[in-house]
């Protein structure tokens, strides 16, 4: 159960990667740090300002979405059309800045805040489940359903898919590609905030929690980097593998299991479980 809950979090962060990758073909190495920032913003709203949990959650998601939009509009728009490598380095640099900024504002000591789920258990037919795990799983499923419907049935979602498939063609069809990209960043930052807030009862919040994002890579790659269900499934698989390795494997396998799985998938089936990658043409 623990593995599945952690896996859901990986899946959610991976979802953020995939959203951005699917649309803009950029890989955002700062996704984990966006999650960290979301958790901190929620902490400020809930513990600092004393807002109720749900209001704090909504507020944090909105703040992070605006932040994501601005991030793209200000920093990432100038590098559109430049090699992917530049974007990777840019987001890595961004991650460093966010981490330092969070450390500067909120300090380097781990924090936590009260949620309605902390420390309660549900007894379902003899199986005891912590509510925080349930909340994570339920929240993930709900979010995914919303996102799926969004991409499938709304004009904006379809426009996002179109600009991901061919910028030029999408532009000709009257889609404001640049603005769409920024909106995708907003969406992704919002998802990251949700992940951070759901994660908060399980782990403590500190500026370095963004490194979790790297494990979420494993999830995203496992699912084939362009697929939303793939990312979630990948997250679940990574979470469960990690737990199993931690219990049955030799010492140290808890930390490395995710990366080993990642390397294996990349080597054996580079496209992931839901392969979408073809050979790039000249």
């Amino acid at each position: 159960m623990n593995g599945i809950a952690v896996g859901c979090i990986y899946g959610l962060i991976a979802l953020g990667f995939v959203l951005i990758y699917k649309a803009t073909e950029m890989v955002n190495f700062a996704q984990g740090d966006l999650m960290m920032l979301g958790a901190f913003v929620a902490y400020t709203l809930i513990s600092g300002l004393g807002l109720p949990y749900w209001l704090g959650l909504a507020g944090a998601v909105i703040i992070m979405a605006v932040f994501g939009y601005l991030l793209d509009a200000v920093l990432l728009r100038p590098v559109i059309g430049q090699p992917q490598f530049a974007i990777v380095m840019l987001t890595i640099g961004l991650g460093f800045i966010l981490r330092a900024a969070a450390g500067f504002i909120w300090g380097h000591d781990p924090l936590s805040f009260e949620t309605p789920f902390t420390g309660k258990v549900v007894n379902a037919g003899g199986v005891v489940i912590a509510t925080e795990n349930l909340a994570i799983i339920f929240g993930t499923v709900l979010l995914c359903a919303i996102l799926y419907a969004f991409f499938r049935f709304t004009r904006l979602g379809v426009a996002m898919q179109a600009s991901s498939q061919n910028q030029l063609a999408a532009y000709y069809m009257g889609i404001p590609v640049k603005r769409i990209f920024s909106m995708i960043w907003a969406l992704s930052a919002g998802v990251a905030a949700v992940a951070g807030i759901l994660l908060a009862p399980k782990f403590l919040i500190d500026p370095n929690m963004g490194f979790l994002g790297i494990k979420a890579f494993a999830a995203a790659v496992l699912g084939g980097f362009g697929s939303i269900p793939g990312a979630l499934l990948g997250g679940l698989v990574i979470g469960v593998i990690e737990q199993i390795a931690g219990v049955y494997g030799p010492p140290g396998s808890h930390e490395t299991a995710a990366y080993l799985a990642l390397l294996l998938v990349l080597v054996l089936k580079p496209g992931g479980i839901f392969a979408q990658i073809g050979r790039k043409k000249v």
Partner: protein
Amino acid sequence: MRFVFKTSYEQDINLFRHGGDRFWYGLLLLALAAAPLLLDTFYLGELSFILIYAIAATGLMLLVGYTGLVSLGHAAFLGIGAYANAYFISQGMPFLVSFPLAGLITAAAGLLIGVPTLRMSGIYLAIATLAFAYIVEQVFIRWESVTGGFRGLPVDAPDIFGYQLWERWEFYYLCLVVLVAVILGVANLLRSPTGRAFVAIRDSEISAQSMGINLARYKAMAFALSAFITGLAGALYGHHISYLAPDAFDIRLSIILLLMVVVGGVGSLHGAVYGAIFAGALPQVIAILRDYLPPAISQTPGLEPALFGVILVFFILFEPFGIYGRWLKIKLYFQMFPLYKKATFKRQKSYLKTERLR
């Protein structure tokens, strides 16, 4: 402006384009050789550190700048080189044997990650090397019989034919010799068919393949060579810090290495050296500035990585060619003086077509 009239094809691939180059590089070498007479021990240590960084950056530049393969895991190679060298020396091997051996072992590790990832490029490769680096770091922690785990592994001073290089200036000369050898080696490699093949792969894999370049072979070769050079740098790095701990070789170091390549200027050996100077000198500059800043800022623990991040972002946004690119622009500006065209270095932006087929 100096025009070089080419009278033979050989001139196209000369290491030095004209006598002026030869003169300035000679002068630079002379200045570096004379440095121990002028600098005190502390700055000499810092200078050797920059030289070591420059070796590693050259290795990474070969991979990132010339072959177009991005590695986020070069700290692992640095670590493998350092640990291998330290282990062999602790087993009583002389430095002159353990040093190249460390490089070879690192090259083998490079093949280990390079061969399975041959089919990947771009972002996937970066992620795979990142995962590799994490696994290697765990190996450093857990394989205690060799690496000493968290207790660390002390590194003895290098000895050459029974003579131990205890003094800073002796170690400095060792680093200088290795760096010059590595740079000459890479510069020579780059004007050989192998180097041309690397550059061709960087510019277009499919075109390179059509011209008869064996992609798998050359990519694996680039990985092995890059790892070899980085391993040599790692061995020296181990001697420099003289005590190895696994957390010295984490993702942060990988990123600093990549930062050197980007900030220096992707795709030039000058860039690797400039980047190394930059990354090596920045902590010192911060340390000096710390005294002048208000304590609220200067006492923040994350100041250095934050500054690295800011500088990285600024370079990518405003000077994607790095320090070396900026230097070329300034040079051209004065050479062309009233006629400099701003668009000379403009990069063509491309609309992005998806890597996905459907």
